[in-house]
C-alpha cells in the first residue's frame, strides 16, 4: 500500500465524516483529498488519477448515484465505494449494478473500509495499466502502412510467412521485411505478445 501516486477521494457533505475518514485512510498510508460535494469533486479533482472515490449516497445537490452516472459518461472508471446512513437495498443494488466497487452502511469497521479500498485500488491499477498499454498499442497500430496492416492481420490469425506470401501474392522475403517492421512499430518482441495485445485491443479475428 501507499503508492505515491494513489489518491483516495472522499466526498461527503458532513464535515465529521470527512475528517474521520481522512484520518483513518491516512493511518493506512493513503493520500486523501476531501470534497463537500460531487460538484466540487468534478471541478477540482484530476479524473485521470489512480485511486478510488468514497462517496456518500445522500448529499445535497448532485447525489452519489448522479455522480456515478456522470463519471461513466466522462469515461472515468475510477472505482466508487458508496456509503449510506441507512441500509437502502434498492439503492445499493442500483449502485452495484452500475459498477460500484462496494456499498458500506455507516457506521462501518476500519477493516471493512480499508480492505474494500485496497482491492478497489489494486484492481483499478491493474486495469488502468492494461488500458494504458492497449491505448498505446492502438496508437502504434495507426502508424502501419496498409500493406503492413494486411501482414499484421495475417500474422495474428496464425499464418506462416509462406502462406501470407501466397495470400498477398508477394515474395516470402518481402513478407519477412514487412513483418519485422510491424513488430518494431508496435513495440513487441514476440508473436505471442503481439497476439495477446491484439486480442485485448479487440483486433484479432
Amino acid at each position, binding site marked *: 500500500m501507499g503508492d505515491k501516486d494513489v489518491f483516495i477521494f472522499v466526498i461527503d457533505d*458532513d464535515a465529521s465524516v470527512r475528517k*474521520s475518514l481522512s484520518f483513518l485512510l491516512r*493511518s493506512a498510508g493513503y493520500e486523501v483529498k476531501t470534497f463537500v460535494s460531487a460538484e466540487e469533486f468534478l471541478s477540482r479533482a484530476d479524473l485521470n488519477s489512480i485511486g478510488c472515490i468514497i462517496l456518500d449516497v445522500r448529499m445535497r445537490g448532485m447525489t452519489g448515484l448522479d455522480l456515478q452516472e456522470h463519471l461513466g459518461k466522462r469515461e472515468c472508471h475510477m472505482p466508487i465505494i458508496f456509503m449510506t446512513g441507512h441500509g437502502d437495498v434498492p439503492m445499493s443494488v442500483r449502485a452495484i449494478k452500475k459498477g460500484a466497487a462496494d456499498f458500506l*452502511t455507516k457506521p462501518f469497521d476500519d477493516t471493512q473500509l480499508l480492505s474494500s479500498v485496497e482491492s478497489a485500488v489494486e484492481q483499478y491499477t491493474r486495469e488502468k495499466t492494461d488500458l494504458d498499454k492497449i491505448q498505446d498499442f492502438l496508437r502504434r497500430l495507426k502508424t502501419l502502412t496498409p500493406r503492413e496492416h494486411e501482414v499484421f492481420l495475417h500474422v495474428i490469425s496464425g499464418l506462416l510467412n509462406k502462406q501470407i506470401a501466397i495470400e498477398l501474392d508477394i515474395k516470402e522475403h518481402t513478407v519477412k521485411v514487412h513483418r519485422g517492421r510491424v513488430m518494431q512499430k508496435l513495440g513487441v518482441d514476440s508473436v505471442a505478445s503481439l497476439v495477446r495485445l491484439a486480442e485485448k485491443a479487440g483486433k484479432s479475428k
Partner: protein
Amino acid sequence: MLYRVTNKISYLQSNSSIYRRMIKHSLVIILISFIFFLAGARAQSADSIETKRVLVLYSLEKGNVGQERMDAQLQAIFSSNKTFNIKIYNEYLDLIRFPEAKQISHLTDFLHQKYAREKPDVVLTVLPPALDALEQHGGTLFKGTPVVAACLPRDRAKSLADSALRKRATGIIYVDNAYEIAQSALRLRPGTKYIAFIAGASPLDISFKVPILREIKRAAGGMELIDLSGLTIAETLSRVHNLPPDTIVFNTSIFRDKEGVTFTPPEALRMVSNASNAPVFGFVETHMGKGIVGGRLASLQWQIEKVAELAQRVLAGESPAAIPIAEEGGYLTIYDWKELKRWGIPESSLPKGSIIINRELNILDRYKKYLFAGALFLILQTVFIAFLIDTNRKQKTASAQLRESEERYRELLRIDRSSRLGELTASLAHELNQPLAAILSNAQAALRFLASGKNDPELSREILQNIVQDDKRAADVIRSLRSMVKKGETRKEPVNINDILREVIAISRGELTAHNVVIETLLDEILPSVIADRTQIQQVALNLIMNAMDAVAQNSPDKRKIILQTELRDGFVRASVHDSGPGIPAEQADSIFDPFYTTKNNGLGMGLAVCKSIITGHEGRIWGENNPEGGATLSFALRAADHG
C-alpha cells in the same frame, strides 16, 4: 414482557444486516409517537386561539320556540368564528313567571357567584326583562362587561340609549312593523268596521303593546277599537268568540294574564285564534302557524344574525358604546294557508312574493304524486327485473374483478404506508449514523496510528477532539428527540382516559391484528376525567400497548392477549396494561423506564422512557410489576379531576 438487557452500543457492530433490521424496527414506536405528536401540534395550533365566553341571558323559561331557535343559530354562528374559540353559556331567567324584585335579587347574586371565575367577555340579553335585571342594583352584575341587548321594543331601546348602561351596552330593536301590518290587514278585509286588540297583563306584554297600539290606531283612522288587553284568559277567549261581524283581531303577546297565569305567547295565541270568530293578525315571526293570518313580519333570523354580529364585533375589541343601536333590517312577508282558507281570503289579494306556509292540497292534488309514482313504479319494476336478470350474469365476472382490484388497492395502501414510515426512519437513522460513523473511524484511526508506532500528540489530540464533538452531536440528536416529546407545548384539559384508550386501540388495531394479538378491555365507565394533555397521554397509551404487544409476540397465537383496565383508586385514575409475556426480570422493575433500556432486538429503549417523562410531567406515577400468574402489568395513575 421480554426484558433481556443488551449491550447498549451493540448496534455499533459492523454487521450491517443486523444493524439495518434494528433501525427499521426500533423506531416504529417512536415514529408512531411522532405522528401523534405532529397531529397534536396541528391540533394545538387550532386550539391556541384565544377562548372567549359569551353569556346569553334569556328572559323566558327554557323551551320557548324563539329562544330555542336563537340558541341553535348562535351556536352555529359562533362555532364558525375563526378568530376566537367562543364558549356559550346560557341562562334562562324565567322572569315572567318569577318577576318579584327579591327573586331577581337572588338570581343576580347567584349569577354573580356562578360566573365569578369564568367571567363572560360579553353578555347578550334576549327580550327586555333580562336587560332590566342587568340594570338593577346600579348595574353591578357583570360590571364592566360589554352587553348586547337583543329584541328590544323601540321604547326600551330608547331608554337604554339614555341610561348609564349604554356606556358598555348596545342593542337591536325588534321592529313590530305594526303600521304596515295593520294597513295590509285592513286591505285583506275591506269591510272591516271594528278592530279588537289582545295583549297580556305583564309589564313585558304592556311594553310590546303600547307602541303597537299607537301604530294600529294611526292605520285604522277613526275605526272603533275593542280593547281586550289585560283580561283573564277566560274573559279574553269568551270575548273573542263573540265579536261583532266585520271585526279583525290584533294579538301582540300574552305572557301573563290578569290573574297571574303565565303562558308562552304562541300557546296563548293558539287558544285565542281557535276561539276567535274573526281573523287574527300578529307581529312576531314565531307566531306564524299558531293562528295568525300573516303579514310583513320582522325576521327573527335577521335579529339573531345581527346579535351574533354585534357580539363578535365586541369580542374583537369594538366598544359597545361606539356601536349604534341597530334597527331591524330583515322582513318576511308570510301567510298561513289554513288561516286564509278559514277566513276566505283569496291568495290573489296577497302581496307578490309572499311565502305561504301550511298549504294543504285537495285529495287528488294531494295524492296525484303518489298515483303517478305508483304507475311509474310498476313500469320501473318491470324494467328493473329485466335489468336484474341481465346484471346477475354480469355480476359474477364483476365481483371477481372487484376482488382483484381491492387486493391491488390494499397492496398500494401497504406500500404507501411503509414507504412513508421508511422515509422518517431513514432521516432519523441518518442523523444518528453520521456522528456514530465518525466516532468509529476516528477511534480506529487513532488505534492504527498507535499500532504503527507513530506517536504524534498533536494528531492524537485532534482525533480525540473530533470524537468528543461527534459524541456531543449524537447526544444532541437524542436530546432533541426527547425534548420534542417533552416540551411540545402541553395543553391540559379534562380528558377521559377511557376515550383515549379506545382511540388508541382503534389506531393500533391493524398492528394488533397483524400480530394476532387479542385486546380485552375492563373499563370503569363512571371514571372521572383527568386534567391532561390528550396527545401525550395517547402517546403513553400507545407505547404501553405496543410494548405489551411485543411482550406477547413470543407466545403461541392463542395466548397473545392484552388486557386494558381502568379504575378509580384513592382519587387517582389508574390505567393498566396486562400482558402474558415473559415478565420483568428481577430487580429491573424501575430501570425499565430508563432511556435506552431495552430487551428487544429491535428496540432503541426510548418508548417507556418517553412514557415516564410524560407521566411525571403530569405529576402522575408510572410503574411496572409482574403478575402472580405470569406476565407483567404496566400502569400509570393520574389525579382525578374532581378529587383535586
